[in-house]
């Protein structure tokens, strides 16, 4: 019964953590990515290296940072550099993963974190790109973490802050973005999603425990590719929850 008592945030953290490949570097943003990276390092990818955009590389993550320039992003780190060095490392193709968020995502994984409505007189002004555009441009594989509803999963983003596959196959390369890069996964509170190799459109991979394929479709504002075989995400394990609650975020800053 303990296995059922988890929050959707905890589940998203676990799903994201299980995606990480050992021996790679990952751009970490504030929030869920920090916890996912810390969890992955403990259980699945001990050689995953957290990289923070303002310069922290290989921090211990003993304490959870509260922001991407925070003291904890470089406490006992292997290097405390600056933003240019980190972003140039990404330009050279040395950073495998990037986590992204946003207010809107479209079928090609393009993200909006700038405005809702018109740019010059917006309905809602959002924080802006920050490092998201760079992470989405330069990392090999990006993982978006989003709440899943029709206002967020939209046919067309109001403002294309961060590049996904733009308008389809080959579009990134035509735009000049590094070849072979792009969106990899979307971790939502309902499901895990990926992208169709040919069309580069979003595709359902697995639903979360207790969630139906129909629920996912209903909460998505565009046509989602539903493969014949849809997987099932495992709920957080005892081990995952213990690590998260007792070691990674004991003060419950995020979970």
């Amino acid at each position, binding site marked *: 019964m303990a296995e059922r008592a988890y929050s959707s945030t905890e589940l998203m953290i676990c799903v994201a953590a299980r995606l990480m490949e050992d021996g790679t570097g990952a751009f970490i943003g504030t929030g869920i990515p920090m916890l996912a990276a810390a969890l992955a390092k403990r259980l699945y990818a001990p050689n995953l290296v957290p990289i923070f955009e303002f310069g922290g590389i290989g921090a211990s993550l003993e304490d959870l940072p509260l922001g991407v320039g925070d003291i904890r992003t470089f406490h006992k780190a292997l290097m*405390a550099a600056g*933003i*240019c060095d980190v*972003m140039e490392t990404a330009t050279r193709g040395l950073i495998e993963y990037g986590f992204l968020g946003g207010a809107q995502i479209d079928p090609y994984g393009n993200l909006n974190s700038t405005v809702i409505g018109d740019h*010059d007189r917006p309905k809602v*002004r959002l924080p*802006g790109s920050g490092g998201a555009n760079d992470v989405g441009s330069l990392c090999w594989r990006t993982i978006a973490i989003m709440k899943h509803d029709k206002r967020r999963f939209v046919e067309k983003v109001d403002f294309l802050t961060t590049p996904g596959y*733009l308008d389809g196959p080959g579009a990134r390369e035509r735009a*000049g973005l590094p070849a072979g890069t792009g969106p990899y996964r979307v971790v939502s509170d309902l499901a895990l999603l990926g992208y169709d190799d040919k069309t580069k459109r979003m595709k359902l991979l697995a639903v979360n425990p207790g969630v139906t394929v129909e629920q996912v479709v209903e909460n998505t504002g565009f046509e989602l590719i539903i493969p014949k075989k849809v997987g099932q995400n495992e709920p957080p394990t005892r081990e995952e929850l213990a690590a998260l609650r007792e070691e990674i975020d004991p003060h419950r800053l995020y979970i």
Partner: protein
Amino acid sequence: MEVLEEGRGELIQPPDVEGFRRWLRENKSMALKDKLMSEHEAVERFVHDGDYIGFELYGTVRCPMSISREIVRQGKKRLRLAGQGLNELDLLIAAGLVEKLDLTYIGYEVYGLSDILRRAAEGGKVKIVEWSNAAMAWRFKAAALGVPFIPVRSMLGTDTFRYSAAKAARCPFTGLKLTLLPALILDVGIIHVHRADRYGNCQIDGISGFAIEMARASKRLIISAEEIIPTEEIRRYPERTVIPYFLVDAVVHAPFGSHPGDMAYMYDRDAEHLKEFLEAAKTEEGTRAYLKKYVYDIKDHQEYLQLIGEERLAELGRKVKGR
């Protein structure tokens, strides 16, 4: 150079590298001059109405908050800002001093959005040109290089590009399409560091953010420092000097100068104060009251620290881990 595409955003500060050269030659000196002064004098002498200003790092991390508050106090007007920030930009926007922003991000990460920027943007009170984080840092880097642009591989294919003032062109060596970012030369750069001598030689602990690039992209440069150290210490570890004195116009001694933000290995951020600010920022009245209490009714940084209280500051010092 054939331009394939260009952003529609205003080029708020054109990359006049020749003017920058002339200005630096006329206004900077390699002489070791004592530049230690009060924040009042530094801001009065080196920040002018209409200036284009940049702050480093950002408003909860090693940020020159004491200088930012002094700019608000002196009411410098029609400012244009390099907007990679949080709290420092919000204070200036809230005080109605900002006209235009080259913006990459303004928000409070774990604490959510910035209501002050949101109100100003939604009300059309500030003009905003979009960039990515790295793009802003690279624009400083281009200025530091002394050249009018730098080619990069970010921003392509997006509205971030379309609402910026970048251009895209094809590389004559490889045929690759690249973003060309215009150099960003600041009228004033403001940077908070761990240690500086009276001449302005600076050391920073931990990440350098974009201090190295921004210092070199500034016509005038104000440094605030937690500690003023003898020049012998600088000479002993010359590889630790990240900003050399001849780039600096003013050195301000500002212990806890980043409050309510943090300072690596010295003190942690003041989460309570930030929450108080964000609560206040929800309404215009609240914001005005916050500014009155923490900026306008306060004479200087010394008085600000008294208001925050010694006990609280000592606690922030205890909360941070050492090396």
